[in-house]
């Protein structure tokens, strides 16, 4: 497995910073909804971009537990390690 939580976190931050509306000082601990002002639809659409990058699909119920960028990275790393979506 080459995708670690740290490398996925970096990739997520890089993708987020491509959006000029996202604050410049985000870290793994940044809260996606509160700190980035994403609504639920924006979160789902952003996750879709990351899914393509990592070739995984994130079931919607897993998103409910995700608060921070690191939480998302942990979820994606676990899905990637499983090799499937469940």
């Amino acid at each position: 497995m080459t995708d670690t939580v740290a490398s996925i976190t970096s990739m997520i931050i890089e993708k987020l910073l491509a959006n000029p509306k996202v604050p410049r000082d985000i870290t793994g601990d940044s809260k996606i909804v509160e700190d980035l002002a994403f609504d639920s639809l924006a979160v789902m659409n952003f996750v879709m971009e990351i899914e393509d990058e990592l070739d995984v699909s994130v079931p919607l119920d897993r998103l409910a537990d995700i608060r921070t960028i690191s939480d998302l990275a942990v979820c994606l790393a676990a899905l990637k390690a499983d090799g499937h979506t469940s």
Partner: protein
Amino acid sequence: MTDIFAKYAGLKTAAAGLTAHSPRNPFGVVIDYPVSATVGLIEGRETLLFGTNNYLGLSQSTAAAEAAIETVRREGVGTTGSRIANGTYSLHRRLEARLAEVFRRRHCMIFSTGYQANLGAISALAGKDDVLLLDADSHASIYDASRLGYAQVIRFRHNDPADLDRRLSRLKDHQGAKLVVVEGIYSMTGNVAPMREFAEVKKKHGAYLLADEAHSFGVLGENGRGVAERDGCEEDVDFVVGTFSKSLGTVGGYCVSNLDGLELIRLCSRPYMFTASLPPEIIASTLAALDEMQARPELRKQLYANAEQLNRGLHALGLNTSAHVSPVVAVTLETIEQALAFWNRLLDLGVYVNLSLPPATPDQRPLLRCSVMAVHTSEEIDKTLAVFAQAKQEILG
């Protein structure tokens, strides 16, 4: 005591912001009464209705009204019971048989609303070991169905069969059933699903396909059966869900299928079992509307001609509209302030359309959702286009 409404503080602020910048509440419009299918009395003025789902104008069908009156006198105003208890009259069975015949399917279940049809069919079909694959722009009833059931839920990119293909490929070792859900015409944008391509993908992966033809039934296809009929792939669409509250002008929903298992859903679908069935007069008027829809195919032809006139006209004004010609035309604007001002000005000038704001829109931008009817006259469409031109000039410059 914790304020039970505290969690809606953000919503309260947003709603207050909207009404502060608007002479009227955009989500509180009252139509005093419909003068005809295309004209309603709003704020005491006759207003052209270009924001309904009454595609064939059948909400004002005389035959449907007469059928309802006769039935309500004979059978009363309601059933007071669920379909699995005292809420199934012979009329309910008759409508199910009639719809099965129209769709050329063996089975049909009717629900009390179109929302409940999606809720009831999808939540019961996709169980806890299954995977539900939803188009990203799916209607709220489809998302809500995914929350009522226990299946794993995966979104794929809107109208993108290649993305669905990738996501089904990732599930190749998953043992559960896979149910793909798409809509024929998308209610907010008027986008039309590439149904044949979706059907090919679902066959390749051994998945099931459910098409919500709520906005396309009575509108597309040689016989009005929707996008699947138009694309010649009805056999590959396992379940069709739809509603009576669009082209048929009444209220209620249905699911049709050739799969015998659909009958089992009657015994496990909570939105089917635990709600009152449709009142008999609604069933009777729906049957009459269905007869009228089939007897007057010219309505569909006129609807398409009207859709072309409205689409072309809005496009010619330089407004941002979809490339699809469908009875739903969305004008996309950049800011909520623009959309609010535009929508208010249209209403001041005598045209009602739907205002749709993010996050209820697909791409975070506000929409003016316009819809056309078969019974709009060419003059009414021209007048609306002129009003759009004036509002555009005043608001956007």
